[in-house]
């Protein structure tokens, strides 16, 4: 297996051999409710993969570098889009958006899960998740 940067969180995000990402939620074994991000308590929650495809529920653009901490991204700041994507009848999940111009996102646009390289200011490189317009996905 090639040496890809590790996910920002092992329980949240996995990558298969083809680098296809999967996001996970935790299903409460008693109530059946989904929790996201998945809680660490394995006794109470079973990890469950979320659908990869959905529609854009809302979006915005982060135009200034967030305060650090908590932000751990690079010093050199590039604005990025952020949105909520409704993943079928599971959850509406928040993430970075990629693959379209910053003003190119529209509510109800079909979106699909993808990965993004996340270079931290401390030099560590990780893989995070993002959503991209479906027609953009290769």
């Amino acid at each position, binding site marked *: 297996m090639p040496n890809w940067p590790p996910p920002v969180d092992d329980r949240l995000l996995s990558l298969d051999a083809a680098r296809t990402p999967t996001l996970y939620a935790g299903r409460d074994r008693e109530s059946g409710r989904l929790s996201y991000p998945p809680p660490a308590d394995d006794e109470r929650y079973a990890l469950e993969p979320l659908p990869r495809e959905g529609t854009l529920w809302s979006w915005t653009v982060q135009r200034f570098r967030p305060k650090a901490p*908590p932000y751990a991204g690079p010093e050199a700041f590039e604005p990025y889009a952020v949105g909520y994507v409704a993943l079928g009848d599971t959850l*509406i999940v928040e993430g970075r958006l990629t693959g379209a111009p910053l003003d190119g996102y529209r509510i109800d646009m079909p979106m699909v899960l993808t990965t993004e390289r996340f270079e931290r200011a401390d030099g560590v490189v990780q893989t995070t998740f993002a959503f991209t317009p479906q027609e953009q996905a290769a």
Partner: protein
Amino acid sequence: MSSVHIIGAGIHRFGRTPQRTGLQQGAYAVRQALAAAGLDWRDMQFAYGGSDAAGKADTMVSELGLTGIQFINVANGCATGGSAMFGAYATIKSGEFDLGIAVGFDKHPRGAFDPRPAEWGLPDWYGDTGLMLTTQFFAMKIQRYMAMHGITAPTLAAVAEKAFDNGTLADHAWRREPVDAATILAAPMVSDPLTKFMFCSPAEGAVALIFASERKARELGLPSVTLRAAAVRSRPPGSFEVFSPALEVERGPSPTVIASRAAFEMAGVGPEDIQVAQLQDTESGAEIMHMAENGFCRDGEQEALIAEGATRIGGRLPVNTDGGCLACGEPIGASGLRQVYENYKQLTGQAGARQVPGDPRLAYSHVYGAPGVSAIAIVER
């Protein structure tokens, strides 16, 4: 059970005051309120006070006087001021005491808030990757609302323009210069669709309100308003709140909707009876959405209401008559009490150049914040 009356109000101007700590601004507001009412700190039987980021309220007794007063600190995030007021309300209503004070103050550093994920029960990656910003939440809430209900960007600008116009008329406001709608629209985006003039900024300031029982209020004979309702509510299932990595597919009402209903029920009045309103305006879209969430119009009607000037001073329902958070800035612990201060001034005819005409009798205030809490107060002259 006594009815609850506000018989005095004091404020330390909002904005930036480098020479005073937040606590000192709080004590300043207390002294202003006492002076306005002709009362002494020794007359106060109880106090509720709090700040989000500027220290422990009860330490101000060392400046105000060591009277042995029952002083309870309140820390309830964005509802700190509203919760302090709720404490005073319940204390008077129960008959425990006759006369006391609620004080809220704050002093935040410049720029956006910088929360720590662990304090909000969230994993580090959420903050690391740049998703943990209040500004993103407000932008995405209004972005969707605009698409669903036909609200346009010029309406966002009109709300901010009104705020700055009203701020020019309020001595305690931070922003005292008008900014026209075209400038507001053309300003740099902070988080689309919101430009920099559409967001309030973390700031400083303090407010103190003096509460009295019916008997005490009558004895003192001061200009006063009756607190007809005070309600604080946390979030119900399906609400959209700040710092949410995911939302439920089944959407529900906001904490504002349930707090508002509770307050109207307590007061025995409806939205149509309110003559002046102070609504949480963290950004201009929030004021628009909160008009509907508090029951003052249906979703989408804001577009026409704002265009016809209904929310301006002199309009059908003046909103944020002192410029709200947009013109005053947001010292978290003080904002909720500032709204009630403004309503007290309006109902007692002391609002000067920003006085709402027509001798208003009934006023409404609404403060909202993270992680999904709303506090409502309805006051009547």
